[in-house]
């Protein structure tokens, strides 16, 4: 019912206009024009604001800051005399002010004010990359420009990055963190003085409020302890619950039921001192509370839970209660990842006079001053910030050292899933997938974003630890999803619309692919997926978006996810006599979207078996310690990847570009003689991505030739494994893309050379019989020459423009 009263307030302004305090809570009054026209806007400040210094600035109303707690009328103390100083003039004199501090702190109001004004006027951060500062001149004082912005936009909030403050004035920063309740109002005062000096004519709804954020003491929720009480802290977490709006009384309005005289009482720490008698008519107990003339402010309880990343294993996440006030209400929704800056509070249980004992526990909460969503733009654009994990100096140093090692690539690859034996190239491929390419934005030229993620398909015999690799990757990356093709439907992968049980509204629930945006989506049993389900992957794997049009919701979601899929052959055992396509029965349109396709086969060779057996046996009996020494720790690997993904975005060097062009042209050449397209731009893009990823592994900002070489090698290896035509023995690009196994190519070249020689030694007849030529070649060569091989050799010579084959005759050219 009290909410109803509140809502009614703006519609009955008559009563409020009479009171001078009314405009102070402007948030409840919807129309600002009414404020302008009101003569009461300017003039005497409210009685309750007398204690606060903010009312002085040109009559712009100050707004109470419940986030700082009830206004503490803390006396200032002269350090020398230890006497409360009541005379404000003493404080204004600089000489006397030196020793004057707010009681219980070491904060001197005037010095603090001056320091902050200096900070605002002088602080320059040329390296700022924050998105808030977009459009500002980075070589000008940052916060001065922000003040200008405030004068234009009229949103009287100044967010101050504590990191800036610290670099500018460490002492001021320390005071801010230790005594936020005293220092922030001082900042408010300072900023308003400054603002109204510069923009004397500007009109603001209420006075500017300073909101510091990013206190360097950024804490994990777990490390909060009793020492942090009443200090400024920044913690990160995830919103799990928000309460309804709670109207909190700021000022109670009492009216005498006898004479109608009214009185206003400010709420102090949740209590109202009810007037015992009417001051006007002196009748006792005649004052009654009038609800709808009292002042309320908005308040909301928000529950924050530790982010899953910074939790120790085997424990449950902690939660903490946060109170948002006024315009911060309803700024966050459950599920949001946020950084909050606020003051940590502990409220003791109140003693109840009726009981002989009291619970000795404090209730703790945070009064929020600033919310910062870390995944704010997930659905809109890139959010490199969000991924930013804080690395300690030491860690960065050790990671950089590691990156300088010449064998860092091999080291990292072998650290990946050490329990899985060999498959070095597959691990390298997955490693490059974990790093990913550089993001490129071509939206200016109309092609939109280029995919930076590397997609990998593993196929092969059951029981070759494909699932285990997937599980490992899923556990390694912070935003990974693991699904099984068998158990997932199209909607489970993309998004579905459902009715929210509480609000009865249609809401979009995101599926695995959207959830793994910026991560890796591991899909096991890819082949078991229904065609319907698989079809949604087409869009995701190239455009990296998901379009949804259902139940009145039409939207496009980002799904910049790398796909790591595993497929089993149809006949449960890989049939080497069949092609990859035939073995796994996946449409080639989908297959071509994988950058790398690896076969995981049982090599069936004795030496391999022996090594495998040795590996497994030692796995089963060596202790954890011995194994740890050999390989990098999983956490190091995690950090290494996170660091590279965040900070390194390599660009192609000139040589690398040349090398890539060559590689691509080579690939195109292979098939062109046979009149088929053997490599598409897609393959070139794959190569670029892989080279970039390899450069990232080296922490290099430039893609060098060695990166291209490795990308080429890996790409070729993958193709060799997966794109070899079992019938002809060479890689046939019509299967996947193009490429050829090195051995097959060599053999073909040998035969072609032999053939050429043979033709040259023979009489130079311009035309020869096909059959005859084959028989002669067979007679001449030591190894068997199959018809296919012969065809290939002819084709190779045709590629050289040496001869042409027409029907059953072979003609020499030139």
């Amino acid at each position, binding site marked *: 019912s009290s909410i109803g009263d509140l809502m009614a307030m703006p519609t009955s302004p008559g009563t409020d206009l009479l009171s001078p305090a009314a405009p102070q809570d402007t948030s409840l009054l919807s129309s600002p024009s009414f404020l302008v026209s009101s003569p009461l806007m300017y003039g005497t400040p409210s009685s309750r604001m007398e204690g606060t210094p903010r009312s002085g600035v040109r009559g712009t109303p100050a707004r109470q800051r419940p986030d700082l707690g009830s206004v503490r009328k803390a006396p200032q103390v002269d350090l020398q005399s230890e006497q409360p100083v009541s005379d404000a003039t003493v404080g204004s004199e600089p000489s006397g002010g030196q020793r004057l501090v707010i009681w219980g702190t070491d904060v001197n109001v005037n010095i603090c004010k001056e320091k902050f004004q200096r900070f605002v006027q002088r602080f320059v951060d040329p390296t700022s990359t924050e998105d808030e500062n977009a459009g500002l001149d980075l070589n000008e004082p940052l916060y001065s420009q922000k003040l200008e912005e405030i004068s234009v936009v009229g949103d009287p909030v100044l967010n101050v990055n504590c990191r800036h403050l610290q670099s500018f004035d460490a002492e001021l920063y320390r005071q801010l963190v230790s005594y936020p309740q005293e220092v922030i109002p001082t900042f408010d005062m300072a900023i308003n003085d400054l603002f109204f000096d510069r923009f004397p004519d500007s009109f603001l709804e209420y006075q500017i409020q300073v909101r510091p954020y990013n206190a360097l003491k950024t804490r994990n929720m777990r490390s909060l302890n009793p020492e942090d009480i009443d200090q400024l802290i920044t913690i990160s977490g995830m919103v799990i619950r928000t309460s309804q709006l709670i109207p909190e009384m700021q000022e109670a309005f009492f009216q005498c039921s006898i004479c109608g005289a009214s009185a206003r009482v400010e709420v102090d720490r949740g209590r109202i001192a009810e007037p015992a008698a009417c001051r006007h008519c002196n009748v006792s107990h005649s004052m009654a509370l009038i609800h709808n003339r009292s002042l309320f402010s908005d308040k909301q309880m928000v529950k924050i839970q530790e982010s899953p990343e910074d939790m120790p294993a085997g424990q*449950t996440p902690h939660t903490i*209660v946060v109170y948002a006030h006024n315009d911060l209400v309803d700024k966050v929704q459950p599920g949001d990842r946020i950084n909050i800056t606020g003051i940590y509070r502990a409220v*003791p249980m109140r003693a109840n006079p009726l009981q002989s004992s009291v619970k000795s526990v404090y209730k703790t909460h945070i009064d929020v001053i600033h919310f910062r969503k870390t995944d704010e733009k997930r659905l809109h654009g890139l959010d490199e910030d969000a991924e930013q994990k804080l690395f300690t100096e030491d860690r960065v140093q050790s990671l950089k050292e590691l990156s300088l090692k010449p064998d860092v690539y091999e080291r990292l690859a072998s650290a990946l899933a050490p329990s899985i034996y060999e498959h070095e190239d597959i691990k390298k491929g997955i490693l490059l997938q974990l790093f990913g390419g550089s993001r490129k934005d071509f939206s200016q030229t109309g092609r939109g974003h280029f995919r930076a993620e590397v997609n990998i398909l593993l196929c092969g015999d059951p029981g070759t630890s494909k699932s285990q690799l997937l599980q490992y990757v899923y556990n390694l990356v912070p935003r990974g999803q693991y699904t099984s093709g068998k158990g997932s439907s199209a909607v489970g992968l993309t998004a579905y619309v459902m009715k929210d049980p509480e609000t009865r509204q249609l809401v979009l629930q995101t599926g695995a692919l959207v959830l793994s945006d910026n991560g890796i989506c591991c899909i096991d049993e890819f082949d078991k997926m229904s065609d319907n389900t698989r079809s949604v992957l087409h869009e995701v794997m190239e455009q990296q978006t998901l379009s949804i049009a259902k139940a009145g919701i039409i939207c496009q979601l980002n799904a910049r996810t790398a796909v790591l899929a595993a497929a089993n052959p149809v006949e449960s055992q890989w049939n080497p006599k069949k092609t990859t396509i035939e073995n796994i029965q996946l449409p080639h349109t989908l297959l071509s979207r994988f950058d790398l396709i690896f076969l995981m086969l*049982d090599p069936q060779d004795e030496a391999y078996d022996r090594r495998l057996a040795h590996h*497994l046996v030692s796995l089963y009996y060596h202790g954890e310690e011995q194994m740890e020494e050999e390989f990098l720790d999983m956490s190091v690997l995690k950090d290494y990847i996170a660091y590279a993904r965040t900070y390194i975005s390599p660009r192609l060097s000139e040589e690398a570009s040349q090398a890539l062009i060559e590689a691509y042209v080579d690939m195109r050449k292979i098939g062109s003689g046979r009149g088929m397209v053997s490599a598409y731009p897609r393959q070139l893009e794959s190569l670029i991505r892989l080279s970039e990823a390899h450069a990232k592994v080296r922490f290099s900002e430039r893609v060098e030739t060695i990166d291209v070489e490795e990308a080429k090698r890996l790409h070729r290896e993958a193709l060799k494994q997966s794109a070899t035509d079992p019938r002809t023995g060479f890689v046939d690009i019509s299967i996947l893309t193009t490429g050829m196994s090195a051995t097959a190519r060599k053999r073909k070249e040998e035969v072609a050379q032999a053939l050429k020689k043979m033709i040259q030694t023979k009489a130079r007849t311009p035309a020869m019989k096909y059959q005859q030529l084959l028989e002669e070649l067979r007679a001449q060569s030591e190894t068997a020459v199959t018809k296919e091989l012969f065809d290939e050799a002819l084709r190779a010579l045709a590629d050289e423009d040496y001869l042409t084959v027409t029907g059953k005759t072979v003609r020499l050219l030139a």
Partner: protein
Amino acid sequence: MSSTHDWINNPLGVVKEMFDMSHNNSTSGWEEKVVKFFKEQLKEKDARTAVPSLNDVPLHYLKPNSLVKFRCFIQDMFDPEFYMGAYETVDPSSKAKMMQCGKYKDVAECSVDFHSSNTVNAERQTFYCVPVPGESPWVKERYASESQGRVVPSTSYAPSRQKRSYEDDDDMDTHPQKQREPNSAVGPQSPDNHHGNADCKRQETEAPSSQAASASHLDLNFPLPGEKGPSCLVKVYEDWDSFKLNDMLEVYGILSVSPVLSVLADEKETSSSLLDPTDSMETAAEQRVHCPPASLVPRLHLVHSQRLLHNNPLMPLTVMEQNTAFLSSTLSEMAAVRAELLTYFTHVLLGDTLAAEYLILHLISNVYNRRDVLPLGKFTLNLSGCPTVGSYTERLYHIIQQLVPSSFYLGMTLQNLNQMRLVPKKDYVANRLVSGALQVPKNTSLFLDETRLEQGQLDTAGVHNVTALGNLISWQKVDYDFNFHQMEFPCNVNVLVTSEGRSLLPSDCQIHLQPQIPPSQIEEYLSSLHVPSDSSSQVNKFRIFLGVARLLDYSISDEVTKSVEDDFVDMRKDDPQSVSAEDLHRMLVVARLLSLSLGQTTLCRDSWMRAKHIEMQRKTRVEQQKCVNGNEP
């Protein structure tokens, strides 16, 4: 001996003494002294048994503020709380100030001076602990009989609690079954449990006679349905980061059942007002979970705790190496006991020796290590071909329950799969982890009875449950549902799946039961099935055998490694299709378990050959079965 009684009966006195002493001569470190004192006291031989146990002594027999022990399982971890570690009181009449110690207490004296600068704030962590889920009755009895002897002189305890004894007696003595019934009938996750009981608290105080009924509304959040026993809020003061969810603990703590705790909670609910910020902070549901009445969920202020490696009362608590005498005597008997057990299991498994062999291996399996995501040592057994007559699987379960310390039977009926909560889920309204049947301590035997499965449709919950079971078996982990994200908790559960054909769940090893009894006589045979009596020395030997074999260390010498490798290469040469890396994995586990079951801590050639042999036997049997059934994959 009188001092013993002092520290057990009045531990707070000890604490206060040390606190005062430190306060007078300003030497800090009294906190460590307290911890050390209790640790020393409990080291003494009989001291542990002298402390009454919350597991077997009804709560109302225990003296408030005395030292008790509790064998429990950490089901949930609450947020840390700040409390007054030390505070000053002012005597209202004399105005004399006194320092008080707030540690190990829930309530402070009323005349606290909140503005005193001497107040010391401190932090502690609360764990919600329940009795060990799935603990077999024989374990409970055994533990009880060990400590009972010294504890029960109840007459001296009973009168100490004047205020609540009437209701409690009434509640505890006459209604334990009643209290349990609704629980077991509706299962732990019945939605009704959470609703419609907003007023139950008021009922409790107004009408104590109806308490039993309303008590069942207070969901104590036991992981397994049909459990009973006290649950406890354990307040931990030191080193709480070392505790993990799902740990099995023996905690020694100061019992706090002050009725003030519930009164405070009560009063808050009624006086909730707009102006008090602390009131709107918690919902009623959260209130109920975090401040349940102390008579139902007592508080324990932990002074000493020990992580339990096992809950087998027949084995020494401490690490095996320290008990060489016990170890060597058991090891020498191992082979003999194993033979007996094999004979017995052969009898139980209808004369199938091979299946009996595998059952032994399964029961002593244990995840002893993890290589990144791969758990090593797990050995999930799928016992297919179980007769469906005469509730054979239930009988089998009861026999296993008689031998292992904790176990749980999950009939995989459609109803169970669709409705049961297997995976724990965070309830953000009440701010607690709602438990599920897969939240069990390590080395619990989970018995999945697939013979109960009938045709029908699995709904979403059912599919999730089956996936969860599959994950548990393959990776030995459970992904707890935190609504916005999932969190992975590793576990170590022995899963035995009984089915008619091959199980729909994955398993490490499938063995098809080949009864030596003609089908017509099975029912008769079953009725005469010998169930081990609880007290026989044989059954105790089995229990020790299974417990010890699981904890033994194991290694493989270099020569044997070599010969195993050779063997593998040879096998691959002969038939590369049928022997894969997975087979080697399994054979290594079988060899390991086989050696351990014989009390050998290193692999010898014989055991390896034997492992190979029984694996071959099993494989041929599975092949045969495939031929018989034809269409099975």
